[in-house]
């Protein structure tokens, strides 16, 4: 595992995901599930979608030093039809919100959303006094992973993506995703 300041054991322990596993009920991980989840979790292609500062850190995560592609986040896709995950990097305003919803709707199942940065999580610095900002992107689309920070470091994005991979690995084809 690639995160320096975090011990491997801590990374594996995650109460929330364990809960998720239990609450999932009739959890019968067949060989088919394992195979499908392995494939899906290791080829998550993000959509080229950035509205503000977090987009620059997303670019940095994709470039030479941090190299997203190690985790199978191979290529940025310009079309939502070819993308698996939409990383909402930056502020979503009231004018942009319908566009974001439309992009999400255009994506093919299975699709995931990562809310990157304070603006996407809650409105961030624009929570107070601003009349034009969506206070949390989860008002518009269902979010799988939240990454705090203003902007989050590329390492934080990598960690968020790894959490998403772990979440995908718990999926089963017998049950539809709850938030889809």
């Amino acid at each position, binding site marked *: 595992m690639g995160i320096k300041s975090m011990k491997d054991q801590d990374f594996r322990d995650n109460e929330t995901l364990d809960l998720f596993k239990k609450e999932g009920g009739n959890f019968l991980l067949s060989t088919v599930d394992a195979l499908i989840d392995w494939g899906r979790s290791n080829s998550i292609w993000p959509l*080229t979608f950035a*509205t503000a500062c977090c987009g620059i850190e997303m670019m940095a995560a994709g470039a030479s030093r941090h190299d997203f592609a190690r985790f199978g986040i191979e290529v940025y896709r310009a079309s939502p039809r070819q993308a698996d995950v939409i990383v909402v990097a930056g502020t979503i305003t009231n004018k942009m919100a319908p566009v974001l919803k439309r992009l999400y709707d255009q994506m093919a199942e299975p699709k995931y959303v990562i809310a990157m940065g304070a603006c996407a999580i809650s409105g961030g610095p624009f929570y107070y006094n601003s009349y034009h900002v969506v206070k949390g992107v989860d008002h518009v689309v269902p979010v799988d992973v939240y990454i705090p920070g203003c902007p989050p470091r590329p390492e934080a994005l990598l960690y968020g993506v790894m959490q998403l991979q772990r979440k995908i690995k718990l999926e089963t084809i017998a049950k539809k995703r709850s938030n889809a």
Partner: protein
Amino acid sequence: MDAEKIQPLTEEQEFSINMGPQHPSTHGVLRLMLKLQGEMVREVKPQLGYIHRGIEKMCEKLTYPQTIHLTDRLDYLSAHILNESVCLAVENALEVEVPDRVKYVRTIIDELNRIASHQLWWCAFGMDLGALTTFFYGLRDREKILDIFEETCGARLLLSYNVPGGLMFDIHPNFQKRTKDFIKYFRKKLPEYDALLTGNPIMQERTKGIGYFSKEDAINFGLSGPPGRASGFSCDVRVHQPYSAYPFAKFKEILYTEGDTFHRYKVRIDEMWESMNIIEQLIDNIPEGDFAVKMKPVIKLPEGEYYQRVEAARGEFGVYIVSDGNKNPYRMKFRSPNFCNLAPLHKMSVGYKIADLVAISGSLDFVVPDMDR
């Protein structure tokens, strides 16, 4: 609509399409409403407001030190320069003279920020033209600058290192050494940029003579920064109205008269060389002293109007403050370079192909949150 009524497009017919708000080559959420005739661009209408966050209005509720943190969310690629503009405006209004050490450090970080911004622009411009390798080359070198920033002030992108009266804290002991190391490194790497992209025949074909803009037009449209200087409009605030430590450094303003996409590209490449010159002149001479002047805990500006302009990586950035004597501004207006540089897009790209429009808008280097504020 009835199927019978749909007519096939002829070459003379105009049709309109939307480019954006989600489009990889609009660098954010800019929406361009295009009228095309075949592949030729006949009209470009930019639609703004997809990232309008009301920052100017928010500033009216905040104190002056707080507004600084909103300025770096405007043009996040030249965050430090924008922070400096508010600090300078407040300092000038209160007639505070900051120590020379502050001026030097501010200027050095300004120039590092400018290099980082131009590197990222180079990546994006290459990608707009279809050259993906530039992305990896540019960001490789940019990370080195971000390391210096991180060591100095703890942030990679949005520095917020300036406060009214100086800097938030002193520079790291390694700052000078690492900056010099970087300059040494980047002097070797910058010729690679030329070898990879500048001399490329495809790139030259696609940019030379494309998107011509005359000097008169540049002045009329208020173009500033590298696009303005590529048209021959001498508009460098660092030269004409020097601030911080720019009077202590010798450098020349990069000017071209051709005014096409290629020379907008050239100006930025040359500016990276020039920025390195400025840093080299200043880095060894950082004077000893305090890193900040002691300011009052609550900063109140005397009643009146204040304007301060700085040269951000994309052009002239201005802060206009109207104060009624309270701890927060009565009105704060930002003159953002991107908004003014967007205006000529129609005039530049009419009559060219739609692929040229991408190259032209790439050469103007838009940062959309700065446009919408």
